[in-house]
């Protein structure tokens, strides 16, 4: 059963998948890693992004990635609005631990149910010219439907990393987690910074969603499988570290693909959560986390 061929393909597939996982996780790396907001509904937003891509693609034939980019501003506004509600209801009163978590949990649930009511539980997919084609390098096959998301994900991750570390707003976002007072003294309103950051995070789900539906068909409860993955990635990478998150994403992608290839696909869902539990038990600050 074991062969170099299979092994090499699994590694490559794992890396491509891991790259995509980074796109899904980067929004959470911002909200959870920087803002300490446990947005457990993040993957649900990604699925909404997928369905957005599906609808527009079906009616207007636009390329899914393009749809993702076009709708990112819309998602940004939605994210900003949701943060507003979250802030007014929870952060301001200091209740964010219990109620904030339940809030996002309820939100996740509502999103999933609304999608089921609107589109049923059937799988949906998009059509694009490159889906179905494969590049072959030696005995390793690289399908376009994995390569395109990987490339876009890489661009997105690098882009956001540069934004956070080079621009004023970006650095303000990094700072707001660590020192509200300093931020206020600099003339920036912490609440508005957080609102912007949250909006940004949700904006990424528009793009991540379009990538998701390129990789494979989507159905409403798919988001739940990603909860484990995104939290495992953000925690393993270390809170507050985008490069750490990217590396963790690649690691998870490879491990999951290996387990799926050599042990069978029915074990894959357990991988991410097991990684998460192990990380929490052994090294909660992750690979590159701040203290």
């Amino acid at each position, binding site marked *: 059963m074991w062969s170099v061929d299979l092994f090499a393909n699994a590694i490559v597939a794992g890396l491509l998948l891991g790259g995509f996982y980074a796109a899904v996780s980067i929004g959470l790396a911002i909200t959870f890693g920087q803002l300490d907001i446990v947005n457990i509904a993040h993957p649900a937003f990604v699925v909404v992004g997928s369905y957005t891509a599906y609808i527009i693609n079906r009616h207007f034939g636009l390329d899914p990635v393009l749809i993702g980019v076009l709708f990112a501003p819309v998602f940004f506004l939605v994210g900003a609005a949701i943060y507003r509600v979250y802030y007014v209801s929870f952060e301001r009163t200091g209740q964010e*631990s219990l109620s904030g*978590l339940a*809030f996002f949990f309820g939100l996740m649930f509502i999103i999933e*149910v609304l999608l089921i009511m609107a589109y049923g539980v059937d799988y949906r997919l998009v059509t694009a010219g490159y889906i179905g084609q494969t590049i072959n390098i030696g005995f390793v096959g690289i399908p376009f439907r994995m390569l395109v998301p990987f490339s876009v994900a890489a661009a997105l991750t690098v882009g956001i990393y540069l934004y956070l570390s080079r621009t004023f707003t970006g650095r303000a976002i990094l700072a707001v987690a660590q020192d509200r007072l300093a931020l206020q003294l600099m003339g920036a309103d912490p609440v508005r910074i957080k609102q912007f950051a949250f909006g940004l995070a949700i904006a990424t789900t528009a793009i991540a969603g379009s990538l998701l539906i390129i990789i494979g068909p989507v159905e409403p409860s798919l988001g739940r499988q990603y909860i484990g993955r995104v939290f495992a990635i953000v925690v393993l990478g270390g809170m507050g570290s985008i490069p750490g998150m990217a590396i963790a994403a690649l690691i998870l992608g490879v491990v999951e693909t290996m387990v799926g290839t050599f042990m069978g696909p029915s074990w894959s*869902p357990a991988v991410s*959560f*097991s990684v998460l*539990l192990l990380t*929490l038990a052994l090294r909660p600050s992750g690979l590159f986390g701040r203290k």
Partner: protein
Amino acid sequence: MKGAAFWISIVAVLVAGLVLTRVVSNEYYFNALYVILQGAIMAVAWNVLGGFTGYVNFGSAGFFAIGAYTSIALGKAFGQSLPLPVMIATAAVVCGLIGLSLGYLTLRLKGVYFSIATLAMAIVFETLMNNWSYVGGARGAYILTPDSHLWFNSYIEMLFMVMLLLTLGSVAISRALNASRLGRGLASIRDDEVAAECAGVPTLRLKLISATIMGAMMGVAGAPYPYFVTFVDPASAFSLFVAVNAIAMPMIGGTAHWIGPVIGALLVGTAQQVITVTVSSELNVLVVGVMLVLFITLAPQGIVGLAQKYLARRRR
């Protein structure tokens, strides 16, 4: 509620239940009541760790399902004639231990990590059950209804009384906890864990006790489930709906007081039964999610909190 009044109410409810089994013959009602009572036990259990101690469990379905699968596994190993109380007791022990272990791994970290870990645990267990063919794997298991239903007219009536007993027992335990020194310790942890530790409260130990009780109660809620539905597969047992209900009911009813989850379960459970019958089961599922979000944002203290505010205003 004063001691005497409480116990009289318990007995009254028990008697009412018995009367119901004599008087009502339409089995639908007992099915509906079973579901509501199941929700109540889950809500009361969730609240022990969630409302009393302040740690949010997202993986309630995990404990519930393992309770159910414990029954299934025991049934396969020892035959269906094994009495239900043995199944329930075993489920309590198994799920209590799971609560303890999960707590030991994660309760030393921030509450957020515990919550995510509970979700992780539920999915890991679901994957395990999907791959364990002894209890049916992904295809599920069929459970035959035992012949004996004691002196009741039908099996579902007996199950209903079993659930009623378990519910009343859980409520009694929860109430005792709320008013005890242990309960006050848990409340101090919820309010400010660091200050509690400095006031001499052994926070880790109390959190572990709380998690164990919660796990055991949820296992108990799940143990009779296979006999109720007769077909169990991981997808339905580990359903997110169970998890959302377990959170929504106490949060809507009010988490600080032991009666909150009961009120929440009665209200939400009944509403769900009504909606399922009159409109659709999808809408039913949506309603609980919306109610949860609305209550959390607008009335975080739940119905009990609203009632307390109303009474305080009237007193002035």
